[in-house]
């Protein structure tokens, strides 16, 4: 019985949980949330010198999974949500499991989701995009029309403006999935907005676009023309395949580096105008209330940010010795220039190694070798982007923006390593 079923995998992780709890009692450390992790072998008969069943029996044929799925042993690597955060799951957010992902690309099934009225179920044959307003020719496009146009593929992150928002008043959530998981990064394919605007011909007075979704929220945001022409893309594919329904199938807008809410999903209409619309999502929401009682409006770009994804609350340290510290950095202002890592709460820093591509407005992977001496440590990462901007401390943001802000938290994050190797989320003064 070498082939485990998912239920067995879960039992295994529950065993692991019991194990973790047991170890807490022994070392007197604290771990309130247990994570599925690397476990002991469940069946010694699978280990050398024995020959496991999978080395002898035939496995599934090529026709068993026409669309491949992750291994059943990876069934805890899923998006998760925080039920108390919102009134309903249809108007809510799910988080990407950053600790379990490698490199810079988010698999399509794990891209975080923010819906305001659930996932629209759209037959692409019945989908249309209308562009009108201050244009020479108002036009309607079918999906076939759009796919016929010159295309581009670009790797960009999408990040909700509220990523980290639950941490403004203090450390709150016990997982990197929840502290930073409102970000994902994919290769997006579609038509440049500038190509579509050339097709309709914009009038000289045109300064703004209104982008509108076809979902039951009719999500709308005003987008300044300079950004639309610079790098916005009307997207139909994600990591090589058509968009997932929860990412806006069959058509969405991508506004690279700016708050994710602007990348309107299920895009059905673009109106060209001479002033912003002040929609609900750019007045009542996605504005930054300052301690003065005044709110900043149209704070679009996502500032330079980073987080260590391992070690993290989901990835505790398995004993003294070599540990690779790794994580992600990003900026809505271009490319990442450097990432520094501290293991002493920001007293001293070392520059980490950047691994893999460094792309414009994309996740960037960093790594740093570390030898853990088994003593408590405070791990931090600090990213610097090509504009020279340095990721700030939380105290800097709070001093300017108060404690009850929601959006645009890009502060340096701290993981506390306890003597048992478990990790917790803390904030420093």
């Amino acid at each position, binding site marked *: 019985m070498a082939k485990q079923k998912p239920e067995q995998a879960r039992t295994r992780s529950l065993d692991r949980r019991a194990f973790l709890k047991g170890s807490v009692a022994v070392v007197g450390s604290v771990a309130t949330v247990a994570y599925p992790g690397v476990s002991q072998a469940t069946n010694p008969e699978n280990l050398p010198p024995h020959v496991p069943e999978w080395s002898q029996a035939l496995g599934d044929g090529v026709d068993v999974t026409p669309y491949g799925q992750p291994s059943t042993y990876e069934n805890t690597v899923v998006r998760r949500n925080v039920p108390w955060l919102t009134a309903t799951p249809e108007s809510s957010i799910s988080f990407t499991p950053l600790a379990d992902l490698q490199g810079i690309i988010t698999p399509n099934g794990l891209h975080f989701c923010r819906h305001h009225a659930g996932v629209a179920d759209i037959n692409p044959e019945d989908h249309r995009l209308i562009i009108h307003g201050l244009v020479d020719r108002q036009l309607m496009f079918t999906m076939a029309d759009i796919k016929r146009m010159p295309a581009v593929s670009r790797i960009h992150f999408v990040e909700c403006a509220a990523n980290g928002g639950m941490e403004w008043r203090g450390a709150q959530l016990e997982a990197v999935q929840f502290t930073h998981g409102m970000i994902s990064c994919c290769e997006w394919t579609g038509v440049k907005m500038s190509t579509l605007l050339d097709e309709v011909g914009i009038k000289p007075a045109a300064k703004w676009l209104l982008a509108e979704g076809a979902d*039951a929220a009719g999500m709308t945001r005003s987008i300044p023309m300079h950004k639309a022409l610079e790098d916005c893309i009307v997207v139909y594919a994600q990591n090589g395949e058509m968009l997932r329904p929860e990412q806006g199938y069959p058509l969405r807008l991508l506004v690279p580096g700016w708050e994710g809410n602007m990348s309107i999903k299920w895009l*059905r209409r673009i109106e060209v105008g001479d002033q912003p619309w002040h929609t609900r999502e750019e007045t009542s929401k996605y504005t930054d209330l300052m*301690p003065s009682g005044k709110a900043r409006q149209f704070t679009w770009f996502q500032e330079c940010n980073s987080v260590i994804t391992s070690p993290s609350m989901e990835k505790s340290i398995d004993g003294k010795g070599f540990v690779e510290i790794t994580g992600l950095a990003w900026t809505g202002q271009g490319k990442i220039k450097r990432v520094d890592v501290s293991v002493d709460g920001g*007293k001293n820093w070392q520059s980490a190694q950047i691994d893999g591509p460094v792309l414009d407005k994309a996740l960037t992977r960093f790594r740093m070798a570390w030898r853990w001496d088994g003593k408590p440590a405070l791990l931090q990462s600090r990213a610097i982007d090509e504009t020279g901007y340095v990721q700030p401390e939380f105290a800097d943001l709070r001093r300017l923006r108060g404690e009850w802000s929601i959006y645009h938290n890009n502060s340096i994050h701290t993981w506390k390593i306890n003597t048992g190797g478990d990790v917790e989320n803390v904030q420093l003064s």
Partner: protein
Amino acid sequence: MFNCLKRITAVSLILLALTPATTLAVDRLGIGSPVDGKTLAGWDIDVRPDGQGLPAGQGSAVDGEELYLEKCAACHGEFGEGAGRYPVLMGGYETLTTADPEKTVGSYWPYATTLFDYIRRAMPFGDAQSLSAKETYALSAYILFMNDIVTEDAVLDGAGLAAIKMPNRDGFIGPDPRPDVLRKACMKDCKGTIEIRSFARKIAVTPELEKAEAN
């Protein structure tokens, strides 16, 4: 005349020189179909603060109250106080500088037209775009009445709605002042004592992680 022609020829030569031979010298692809006004009308539902996009018709706060109780109160509360995590619609005045700001239509929203736009496109939750123009004006009027912005006997049409000055109209600032923190990247001996200000485990609100939602 001759000079003029000469100039045109010169300009054409420059243009030819600048156009790479491999690129199609067209500015349009010729893809997409024209849309007539009738087709567009069903989807062109946005409203701007200056009133552009508001439909003909009007509605009263009195009619709005009845509709509100029928279609909105289950989530937003009988008095706009909100139920569960659903948005509070009413009150919150004088709270924007406190540690618990209540951002309601009355205390926070800068434009009454946005209320009409949002109800028209997204409400009632789960039955969007089902209200008539009259109903949407009536609900807008009633929610504004709840917030003491119009009187109980108010009847609103497009011009009336666009003319309302919301209490927090001047509450928004721009342009974006960020980056608002300018730091240098200190590398050595950057800090003295380090104090931990908060621990997530003391809050203990994280959902159980082991339960897989998929598969």
